């Protein structure tokens, strides 16, 4: 299988490329990037051709593309790739508006190409194990969730709203909303949120507390932020606690680590030894393309997760709860 990467603006592009390099029968055939310097650098790093022209890149023979551009460019790249009949793995969030996301989904459907959204947390072993326990009824009915996704300020285009569409709340809400939707199999109907900027002198949000209600009455609290600083032992966290009628279980996707104490630089760091969720995501996408099946994480999943994050901003602005519109 031949895969190309469209833009290395998002740092996950490097991890996805590393994953592709590890896989047999999968070839990274080239990179398109609108940043010529970056494009040349990654071309050299991965020994692949660099295409400064998007149309020329998409005219190459390949099965699929992975899009890791600034959020605002996802729509244009997905539409162009779909029209070029390439299957697509698009970095999250799918887009920066529900209308754009819907158009992307529709065009991929019209062109009969797969649109999968990159939510790698679904491929974390402990997160999958918890899904299994829930599906087996070991927690009983789900009553509530408590989740976190906190990391460091990525800087660059992430803190430029014109390119990102939102700060920490958009960046770090979609993952956990996706996991909660996946676990409970229901949609969020109501969002109340506080969004603010505390930790960095930046013109965009770096903190948010989001309170949710699902259509079946399940409630959830979520902490999304760029509150972790470089001296913190790890880049951040991904946690979920599921309160069930039979039992409550908490999972920390990054818990599998050894504590490394050092007299140089950071005094304590967590060295992760758990499974590589990015690799799981890429393997799943490739299997999906090979088998021509519905992706495990659809464009609709991406749209619904993004819709909740956007509602959080609206709720904070209005200082009241926001109802989520149904999207069929």
């Amino acid at each position, binding site marked *: 299988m031949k895969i190309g990467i469209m833009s290395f603006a998002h740092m996950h592009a490097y991890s996805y490329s590393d994953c592709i390099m590890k896989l047999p029968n999968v070839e990274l055939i080239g990179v398109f990037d609108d940043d010529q310097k970056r494009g040349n650098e990654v071309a050299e790093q991965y020994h692949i051709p660099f295409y400064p022209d998007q149309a020329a890149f998409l005219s190459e023979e390949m099965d699929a593309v992975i899009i890791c551009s600034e959020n605002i460019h996802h729509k244009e790249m997905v539409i162009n790739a779909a029209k070029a009949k390439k299957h697509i793995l698009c970095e999250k969030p799918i887009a920066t508006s529900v209308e754009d996301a819907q158009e992307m989904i529709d065009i991929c459907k019209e062109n009969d190409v797969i649109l999968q959204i990159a939510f790698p947390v679904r491929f974390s072993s402990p997160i999958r194990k918890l899904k299994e326990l829930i599906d087996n009824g070991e927690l009983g*009915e789900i*009553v509530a969730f408590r989740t976190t996704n906190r990391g460091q300020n990525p800087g660059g285009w992430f803190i430029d709203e014109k390119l990102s569409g939102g700060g920490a709340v958009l960046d770090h809400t979609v993952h956990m909303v996706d996991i909660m939707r996946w676990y409970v199999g229901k949609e969020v109907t109501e969002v109340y949120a506080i969004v603010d900027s505390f*930790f960095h002198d930046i013109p965009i949000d770096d*903190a948010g*507390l989001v309170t949710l209600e699902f259509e079946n009455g399940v*409630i959830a609290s979520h*902490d999304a932020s760029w509150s972790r600083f470089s001296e913190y032992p790890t880049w951040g966290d991904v946690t979920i606690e599921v309160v069930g009628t039979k039992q409550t279980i908490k999972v920390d996707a990054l818990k599998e680590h050894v504590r490394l104490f050092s007299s140089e630089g950071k005094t304590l760091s967590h060295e992760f030894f758990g499974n590589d969720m990015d690799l799981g995501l890429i393997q799943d996408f490739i299997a999906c393309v090979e088998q021509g099946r519905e992706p495990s994480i659809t464009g609709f999943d991406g749209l619904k997760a993004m819709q909740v994050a956007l509602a959080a901003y609206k709720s904070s602005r209005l200082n009241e709860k926001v109802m989520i519109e149904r999207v069929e």
Partner: protein
Amino acid sequence: MRKLIIGDLDKFTLEVNQMKEKEDTYLIRSLNDVDHLVLSHDDQVFFPMSKLPQVKSVDDPYVYFDLESYPFFQKAKEIITSDPHPQGVFRLRRKTRSTTTNDPIIVDDLFVVSSMFGSPKMVYVKRTAKDQSPLHIIVTVTFNCGTMAHLDYTFMDEEVIELEWSGNKKIIEFTSMEADPFATKKDHTLIYSIDSVLDHSHPVNDSLLKRLDDIRNLVTRGDQR
């Protein structure tokens, strides 16, 4: 002058380096628990907040709050308030056996948390259906200083407290289970010290009752938003 602390005896520990004079301090389950107890005007009686309705029976009573009596909370408060204008994200999570109407513990905790961040500006309450077990309540709070907070409660047969603070270049993480110096099933972290209760009790007066009423009203309104 005697000091009479009313409370669950299992919740208290006698610290190795306890500072208060032991001779005049008595820990009792209730005022009715001791035969021939005659209160004098000099006695100071310290009630847990859950016994607030009983305080009318004594002169100049004091009350102490569960959260405020834990040494871990005092340590967290010391760190957080070392910044004169703490701004950030505060999270408190309780699994609690509290079986009263459930709201008192929320009001009590908000009162205690307000000692770090000032008055709450806005409270939003989300709770699971009344017929569902366990009951779970999420309280979202904006304080006047800008700090935001989530207080999560699950009413079940367990006592666990987690506390987190994400502030400017300071992060606090506390979980009662992990801070327990004993690796046994019994939790040795959620216990009070007598010193802490005596140091952090509040005289029951109009000012305290009004502040509690204000918080109770905010929680009630937060339920209706």
